[in-house]
């Protein structure tokens, strides 16, 4: 060992070499590569968030050219505002329905796409279509489907004789919620399906064949073999789904604008309405801060899973 060290010491050292050596050089390159993403993150996410955090402590309406510090008054107003609490409740309903719906539909579709049949490749590619379309375009497509006067849904139901005259699906709280959930589920199926399909392709086919030889039916195979195998994927997909649905704004705003009345006003729409319809930036920022707080637990779970390599 001592001989080797002596030999190494005998080589001439470059005058440009520094004490850190190769490790420090790698760290520097790593930091350099991180710089564009970090700069983007700071400019687009961190600065606006810190700015909103600060503004949540101010009164700042359209009538004021400069904000006025009011401490936690905006949060006290939120505590007493039934509309904001209703938005929390609406968000919870939307997130649960959208995530559960996408989970079931995504898994079901992945199971079908995992079976060998003619044209599977084409169908798999077509399944990605909702993902490729911009979310707002999808929202408008679904808006036309549900439209009370020109909608395909009404035309179809009237053709079947199930309704006598067009129904205004988006004008009832339940119909509007169903529409925004369906739209989101349709948009998210490709992503969830891809995750599940990747998981299913790692499943040992011999294990399934053995179970079938032992007399296991489809439900038993799904419950006892496929779902346990997909457990890590399920965890990731649920957490990502919850985070994505908590952040959802564009499809809901394009489809219902948060209405009728406030039936689909989730937190993102509430922040938008307070800021750009009622011009109360301080209050909107405070709601936004609470919205971020709602996002933190699933985000923490996700990061924990990533760090643990689960």
């Amino acid at each position, binding site marked *: 060992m001592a001989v080797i060290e002596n030999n190494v010491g005998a080589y001439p050292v470059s005058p440009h070499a520094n004490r850190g050596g190769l490790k420090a050089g790698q760290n520097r390159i790593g930091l350099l590569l991180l710089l564009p993403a970090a700069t983007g993150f700071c400019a687009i996410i961190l600065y606006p968030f810190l700015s909103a955090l600060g503004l949540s402590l101010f009164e700042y309406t*359209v*009538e*004021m*050219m400069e904000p006025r510090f009011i401490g936690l008054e905006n949060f006290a107003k939120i505590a007493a505002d039934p509309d904001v609490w209703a938005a929390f409740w609406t968000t919870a309903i939307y997130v649960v329905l959208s995530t559960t719906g996408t989970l079931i539909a995504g898994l079901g579709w992945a199971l079908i796409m995992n079976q060998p049949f003619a044209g599977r490749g084409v169908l798999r590619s077509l399944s990605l279509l909702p993902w490729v379309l911009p979310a707002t375009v999808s929202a408008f497509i679904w808006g036309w489907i549900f*439209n*009370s*006067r020109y909608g395909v849904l009404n035309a179809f139901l009237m053709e079947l004789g199930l309704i006598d*005259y067009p129904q*205004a699906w*988006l*004008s*009832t*709280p339940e119909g509007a919620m169903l529409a925004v959930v369906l739209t989101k589920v349709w948009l998210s199926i490709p992503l969830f399906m891809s995750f599940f399909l990747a998981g299913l392709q790692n499943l040992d086919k011999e294990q399934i064949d053995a179970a079938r030889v032992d007399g296991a039916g489809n439900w038993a195979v799904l419950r006892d073999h496929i779902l346990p195998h997909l457990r890590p994927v399920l965890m990731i997909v649920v957490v990502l789904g919850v985070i994505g649905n908590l952040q959802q704004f564009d499809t809901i705003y394009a489809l219902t*604008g948060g*209405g*009728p*009345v*406030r039936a689909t006003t989730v937190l993102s729409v509430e922040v938008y*309405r307070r800021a*750009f*319809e*009622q*011009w109360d*930036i301080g209050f909107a920022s405070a709601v936004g801060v609470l919205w971020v707080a709602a996002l933190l637990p699933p985000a923490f779970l996700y990061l924990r899973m990533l760090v643990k390599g689960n």
Partner: protein
Amino acid sequence: MNTFTRLIGTAAIALTLGSGAAKAADLSFMSFTYAEEANKAIVQGVLDNFQKAEKLTVEPLGFAWGDMQKNIFLRARSKTLPDIAQLSERWLPTFASLDNLVDLNTVYGKDKLEAAFAPDALAMGNINGKQLALPLLSGSIGMVANKEVLTKAGINDAPKSVDDFRKALVAVRDKVPNSVPYSMATKNNGSILIDFMVWNWVHGGRIIDDAGKVVVDSKQSRDALTFMVGLMKDRLAAPEIDRPDSRRLLAQGASAFYLDAPQTRTFLRDFSGKGQAFDANVLPMPTPVLKASDKPVSVQWGHLLVQFASGGKAKADDPADKFLTYIISDKVQTDLPLKMSALPVTKSARAAVADDAYLKNWSAATGDARRNEVGIWSNAADLTNIIGEEVQGALLGQKSADDAIKSMQARLTTSMEKAKKSE
């Protein structure tokens, strides 16, 4: 040359090019009319003619009507306001506190403006003695009917009373399949406000009195909302209708009545695909009244132009002010408002177009327009949302008319605590 020097050089060139591009036009003009397909060419024509006349270029910034307030608000916060912006008359009180808004009395002189403009039009841009906007075009929001649809339904004369109006709606519903007899606004809060305000006035109610006291919790307002709810229940009006939907329905012969400004004619020409041939179907009519002795109601309406300049200071020979001067000249005022089917705002232009049959009929039908009783308050946006939500809740059957009125009274009262009035 090392990498750092190259980077600095590139950045400097980019900055130079960027600032050159930003200064390509002599002034910027933010307009919602410019964003409307039916009217874009008309505005572009004015901009082109201004450029020829004054050798000054204008950068047009078109935003949809519904996005204008948001864009002005954001630009005010980021200090990137345009030189000139077009507003609906009801938005002015909301923006009156922006410190870059120019008092145009200081630019042109109060006397000169009073001499040039029709008093009703000039008043729309005046807030507490300051002329914060110049009118671009004016008129009123009243009732419009489609004559062809009325004929199909066997209706020969426009209904005068509320009872006759209801009977006419029933006839349209029964004789014109798949129609929305009255395309009442039921979707967008800003549009719902106008319909509720009109029917509330028809029934003798007010929302907020002149002193700022909320007075909507009254028998008259309940009757008005109950009347509107009744129309929905009997399928004489429909959900999911906003003003643009109403225009399209009327233009396509699928609706008999709706409320709009005189510029409806231009939209109907476009949406019907028939151009001026469709004019024969457009019937401006007095809003039906409860009793024969009542006066038909209509809402004052207009488009305004505001100027933004550093510190709110401007001179008549600034490019933006030359543009304003051009816009209010007889050359433009005897042309632009007519093309947009609206009334000019200057005395001389009004005299010049006094024989225009459509505008004459419109004025005769809508009578003396009342000032928007919500739009005059600094918290108009909040008031509009509250009224829209409560009315929509009742129309869609989520609450009774009585509950909606009570809730409206309570919420409006809270909102009015800090409100400022523009007079």
